[in-house]
């Protein structure tokens, strides 16, 4: 199944796109999503360790489960204000 993952800021710039599509099992953990991104886009690796995952607009921990129905986003350290 295809999961769409939103990327922002430095991640979007390095990936060259704001969304990545990954083939994943029907349910996968947030940590596994990040591991899959490591494999798909190795140039993101130095940045991903500092990032958090958001699921449907809420911060989620690595063990949280996500499905292709969910909106998944990878968020670099925030720097608003």
């Amino acid at each position, binding site marked *: 199944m295809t999961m769409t993952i939103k990327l922002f800021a430095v991640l979007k710039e390095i990936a060259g796109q704001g969304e990545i599509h990954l083939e994943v099992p029907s349910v996968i953990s947030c940590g596994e999503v990040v591991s899959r991104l490591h494999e798909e886009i190795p140039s993101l690796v130095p940045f991903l360790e500092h990032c958090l995952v*958001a699921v449907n*607009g809420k911060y989620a*921990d690595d063990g949280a489960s996500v499905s292709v129905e969910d909106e998944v986003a990878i968020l670099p*350290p*925030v720097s608003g204000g």
Partner: protein
Amino acid sequence: MHLVATPIRISDLLAGDDEFKTGADVLFLGIVRGDSHTRKVLYLEYEAYEEMAEQILSELVSLSYEKWPLEEVKIFHRLGRVWLGQIAVAVEVKSAHRGEAYEASRYLIEEIKHRVPIWKKEYFTDGTSEWSLCSHVDVSESA
């Protein structure tokens, strides 16, 4: 809406209180500074995960009303290009007395800086640019 793509103006803030319940009006403005460490800044560009940022900003406003007896809370944050001297973020808190307005103002700007998915890219006068990597929420405290 808290996220705005056009300049934040003082005239959008500091409105009067027709019922005269406000005794204190604390306005915090975050302004684009000309230096970042040793480098000279030309302008900033702000990007957000807009749906999530709006949601968290609304939650922060609601939380501040729960924590303190406030009359009114306004938050505006810029998106896009913001030049030196322009307002990047505005937090206005009105209350009957100054104590709660100061406390809520400080709480809100610190939460904005740590929890809201907004990112700043600095563009320098030497032609280079860099994403600012500041801080992050602790997921265990974000619920």
